[in-house]
């Protein structure tokens, strides 16, 4: 059973969001990393890039396939987890600690479209 952390928001493409004021911290769920298998590379955006809700901002590469990362919110990338460049396996090991980007949100109302943990549990299986 994939772990689903309470207190986070989720989207259908299996990213999670932790809200910290007007900053969204974004990663992928345990379900997503299990589905992908060994993650070998994380394609990260750059700080200062603009992201749009529902559009891809990067990708995770496993041995067998690449899987695009979709931003749950719109805004500006204010931090990327560059530790994942050298240690992409951290996403497998602890997907909820291994955040990928932090986004300064341009419209926090977009969060209303995301799922809470119990709704997400319905699709992550």
């Amino acid at each position, binding site marked *: 059973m994939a772990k689903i952390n309470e207190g986070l928001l989720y989207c259908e493409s299996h990213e999670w969001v932790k809200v910290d004021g007007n900053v969204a911290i974004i990663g992928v769920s345990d379900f997503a990393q299990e589905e992908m*298998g060994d993650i070998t*590379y994380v394609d990260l955006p750059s700080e200062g890039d603009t992201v749009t809700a529902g559009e891809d901002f990067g*990708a995770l590469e*496993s*041995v*067998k396939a*690449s899987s*695009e990362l979709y931003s749950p919110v719109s805004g500006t990338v204010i931090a990327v987890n560059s530790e994942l460049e050298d240690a992409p396996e951290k996403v497998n090991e602890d997907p909820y600690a291994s955040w990928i980007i932090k986004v300064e949100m341009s419209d926090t109302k977009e969060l209303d479209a995301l799922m809470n943990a119990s709704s997400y549990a319905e699709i992550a299986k």
Partner: protein
Amino acid sequence: MSDTIKTTCLHDKHLALGAKMSPFAGFDMPIQYSSITEEHNAVRKAVGVFDVSHMGEIFVSGPDAESFVNHIFTNDVRGMEDGHILYGMMCYPDGGVVDDLLVYKEFEQDHYLLVVNAANIDKDDEWLRSNAAGYDVVIDNQSEAWGQLAVQGPGSEDEIVSLLGIDGTEAEEEIRNLKFYTFADAEDDKGNRVIISRTGYTGEDGYEIYATPDNINYLWDELMSDGVAPCGLGCRDTLRFEAGLPLYGDELSAEISPVMAGLSMFCKLDKPEFVGKEALASQKAEGAPRKLVGIELHDVAIPRAGYPVELEDGTQVGVVTTGYHSISLDRSICFALVDSKVSALGTPLWIRIRKKVFPGEVVKKRFYQTNYKK
């Protein structure tokens, strides 16, 4: 043809092991049991076993068997020794590939076994029949009666000796001395045939065993209790890719001829005739318009099937057919079908990956140094 998904004789065992299952070639097949990387490394460094029971076995016999097989096969079976195996293709008249296959010369005169890809069994059976007019042959598709295991890796020779319980017997010598691309016959106590060939699809030493579903189940259980790693189709692809081996559908197809794929050595153009000979000969003489190459990227970005291959100015000159970040070599590499003009070793090429373009160059397709028992 049935719309329902097929299963191999080991399907229940895969489920019990908790394998990740996925449809492949019409069969519900294990993709991985633990992780692709672990299974890949088990085969490179120790020994692993694959369920390849989905593969097809078509037997051809009769007074004209040799000339018939030679008619539909690109390699040359004339004068093949009993117990020997050849790799080659069946081609359409235009040089496109019906399938790539192994031909086993049986220990009986005028008898051959054709081992074909699972996805192509029905198509191949029809192709053989439709080309058999005027040949006195019997074509017998026994694919559903046979299971198949591939035991692969540097430890496979010792494992097979222990698995078959032939320590200290003459059979042990025979199995240990089998050369790459030869096979031996055995029987179980009920007289069921078992075929053991020194073949594989991993770039490592290894054996493939063809037997009844009951025997395949027995052998699988023995291999599991010996601690042999069960390996799924995920690492079968990473292993064959590193070894420079093509997969039908990706590197060979009705549109990709063996000449384009760099497999001319398996097309004997000095044979009197075979289906596709004229087209392949003219592609060879005039140069094929497209060629399959290896490309290595200078960055760690990973090329995947379908990604465009470009020149520096953005002109598309080809497409990736298979790509990985190689597990054994730690390099970002792929096979790509490109315009022949840019196929020379060392040619700089770029691959478009999502929104960015990454530089690389043409390299040899055999990325990994194979370890066959020659």
